[in-house]
């Protein structure tokens, strides 16, 4: 089956780790992930600016490795990212900001990508809250 996975919670929330372990199990089970979509506070999982204590799970790094290793389509909602200070180079230039925290493999795009993924997948699974 094809899974679209959406994440709404920030990296330190248990649901973010849960989403990643679920995504890993999806691929390990022989299924596909047609898109990962990060929305609301989930955009922070794509941040290159998060510094995790050495003795804690580094979710942004783990997500980045997962996406890169499996060449997944990983989209971060641009409106949600901007208001939370997660900008790629293009947006930082556009708005005159010095901090660039989003880079490939993450792509900033709109909610249309969430809808497209949901339409094309067999299952849409959303993670967030706690």
């Amino acid at each position: 089956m094809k899974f679209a996975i959406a994440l709404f919670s920030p990296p330190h929330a248990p649901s973010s780790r849960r989403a990643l372990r679920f995504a890993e199990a999806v691929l390990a089970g022989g299924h596909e992930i047609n898109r990962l979509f990060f929305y609301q506070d989930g955009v922070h999982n794509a941040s290159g600016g998060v510094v995790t204590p050495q003795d804690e799970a580094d979710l942004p790094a783990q997500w980045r490795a997962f996406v890169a290793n499996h060449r997944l389509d990983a989209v971060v909602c641009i409106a949600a990212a901007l208001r939370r200070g997660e900008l790629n180079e293009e947006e930082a230039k556009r708005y005159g900001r010095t901090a660039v925290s989003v880079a490939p493999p993450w792509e900033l795009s709109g909610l249309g990508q969430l809808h497209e993924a949901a339409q094309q997948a067999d299952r849409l699974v959303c993670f967030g809250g706690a």
Partner: protein
Amino acid sequence: MATLHLLSQSPFASRLDSVLRLLGPHDGLLLCGDACHALQPGSAPQQELERLPDSIKLYALAEDVAARQVGLPERVKTVDYPGFVELCTHYAKVNGWL
């Protein structure tokens, strides 16, 4: 000396009641994270879960039950992540309560 308490969150916060209100007769409910505290034997939430018809299947994510050392009622089946994925393929759609 008296204390001023500051409260900013809505008093109408319970998710469990809302989930139970929306459950269809053949739906499943998978408890993860702190929702596993609803399994606490003898608690009001656990009693509410017990009252659900047998046609509604109850599951709990094994790692969260283990982390919290919660007692597991008989009707609740634990699943690992592969089991979680399989449940998603078994039901027609998945509703994540945030």
